[in-house]
């Protein structure tokens, strides 16, 4: 089962390493881990998707809090949340009907972000299952290269995760 945790962490060297090490030590498989800035100076935000059950996710949350640089952790498994993943997919255009590809693009709300002589690069954004589904439709056409950002996620509604109390 996939479990999404969000951690607000101090933007300091080695923090990513500490978080990754903690998850590795308990042998949880990381499905994806993204890090980026937040609106608060000195605070980064990690979205960690792990392959684990609820109990294990609670353990990871507890251990995350032990890290001195971790400010806040939110378990998005327990609350309604918006999740987004982005993929760039380079698809071969030779050897099949270009119109088929364009139809997939059209039907799936993918964007063409680059065209080469042999390939076309698509951007797909959405809930992770949507991205999975589009990729599945592109596979028979010949995927030459692909990258996914990994999931970022945020709780729905007015409640905001903030590190302001730790400034």
């Amino acid at each position: 089962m996939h479990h999404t945790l969000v951690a607000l962490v101090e933007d300091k060297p080695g923090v990513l390493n500490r978080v990754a090490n903690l998850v590795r030590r308990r042998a949880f498989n990381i499905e994806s881990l993204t890090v980026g800035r937040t609106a608060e100076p000195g605070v980064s935000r990690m979205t960690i998707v792990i392959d684990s059950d609820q109990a294990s996710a609670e353990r990871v949350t507890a251990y995350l809090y032990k890290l001195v640089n971790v400010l806040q952790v939110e378990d998005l498994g327990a609350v309604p949340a918006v999740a987004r993943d982005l993929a760039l997919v380079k698809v071969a255009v030779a050897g099949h009907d270009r119109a088929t590809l364009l139809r997939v693009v059209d039907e799936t709300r993918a964007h063409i972000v680059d065209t080469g002589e042999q390939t076309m690069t698509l951007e797909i954004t959405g809930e992770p299952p949507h991205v999975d589904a589009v990729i599945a439709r592109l596979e028979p056409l010949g995927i030459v290269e692909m990258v996914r950002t990994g999931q970022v996620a945020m709780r729905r509604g007015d409640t905001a995760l903030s590190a302001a109390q730790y400034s």
Partner: protein
Amino acid sequence: MPKRTGAQIIWECLVNEGVTTVFGYPGGAILPAYDAILDYPTIQHVLVRHEQGAAHMADGYARASGQVGVAIATSGPGATNLVTGIATAMMDSSPVVCITGQVPSKLIGYDAFQETDITGITLPITKHNYLVTRVEDIMPTIKEAFHLAKSGRPGPVLVDITKDAQQASIEWEWDPKPVKIRGYRPSRPVTSAQLSKATELIRASKRPVILAGQGVIQSNGMKELIAFAELLNAPIAMTLLGLGGVPASHRLNLGMMGMHGEAWVNHAIQGADLLMAFGMRFDDRVTGNTKTYAPHARKLHVDIDPSEINKNVTADAAIVGDLRETLKDLIEVLEPADHTPWLEHIESMKGDAAVRDIQTLPDTGHLYAAHVINDIWRITEGKAIVVTDVGQHQMWEAQYYHHETPRSLITSGGLGTMGFALPAAIGAKMACPDAEVWVIVGDGGFQMTQAELTTAAQEGIKINVAIINNGYLGMVRQWQEFFYERRYSSTPLRSPDFVKIADAHGLAGFRVEKRGDVEDVVQRARSTDGTILIDFRVEQEDSVYPMVPAGADLDAMIRRPEPSVLAETGADPI
């Protein structure tokens, strides 16, 4: 503001943190600090013989005093030699600060001479660690390191400082402001909801058992725990690291629980309807099989570290916070209870399970480790600080030296580090110069760090080293006897002549082969100046009983076999 080099700032900070003793070993990357220390005469530097010893000494110092212990090492091999000691301190939540030199910052990442990524290596075995590359960062980092090491759940912190940061200078003065770390909450206030859930469980209980761990000692909650136990008339079972937190002679103190706990203690836990776990973490050595652990008991868990709650054993109620404060709160709201029938039931289980008073057993001429330790307890009137190593002798110490005061037993529990005792005892002695310090160590473990005997001699301190010499890596031999058909693979152990080793260090050495000689030699050793060593030649194939095999149910104990009740009956060994 005066100008100071980074190296000077290190010592200035330590002086301001109240440090008077450090344990270390010099080398290239820490040379600036070693040069500067000569100008800080209030700090005594103990030159160790191996950096592992420095880390254990700092740990022993911390455990004996409750103050932060400090170890210093150079980069590369100096730093990596600290690793076992750091891991030991981590597992037992001991407040230690390690300061290591690092190669100059511009060489980091170039595989420079003696460069090691020690912050990477120690990441999982420190509470936190730092790499400092700028002189301005030295003071804030050392202040944070001390704050982290001693607050909340204590633990080791490593500060790795590059040589150029030690050499650079700035205008500097001590900043007395208290440390504030953004995401760090060492403890939190106890909520009334937590308290009322806890009291509900306590009031409903007919067969409670208190499980007292090291948290009792670390929170300074000894008095409160006794008051709490007396209020409820509830029995107390101790973890290994908790020993001393409640006087062994207290009527409610049942003794040690777990793998080598007394049978009635484990039976009491298995029969309890409420476990009140205070500052302990349900280590597998105390629970045995968690699936069958205390099956009738609800669990109330109090710990300062929230990640301990529901880790090994699921809690029905939990309080995260300082144990002492929590106990005060509980005492305030609880009314006296009487569990006399339950106490009588436990008392009745002692029966033949009780370790008989081995002092009164006839002397058969054989020397058993249990006798030696019990005699040392009697002769020192239970007032010594005893530092043990790891193995059979460690468990016999826990069973036969009855600790009345906190911080009087220093032992590596969580990591079980052989080689810990001698250096940790040196640290303990430096922390408590007026205390009588005894090392109880196996012939195996002594040989792991025996080089530190020279350190004790050089420092001119008096510690008493009792080698429980059974000619085996005894605890492993015992497992081979029980679980591997007595196939003694790599456990028979040849040792040097320990008395001559003492002699070579200019120290007094003694040998004891008969029980009748124990008292006399121990007394002579105590009155001899300087560190002394006694080689106790004990029964070779004795085993520690009772024993819960690893992972077995807590009440599935292996008991001392009837026909060969060695130590208890004084019968001839088979």
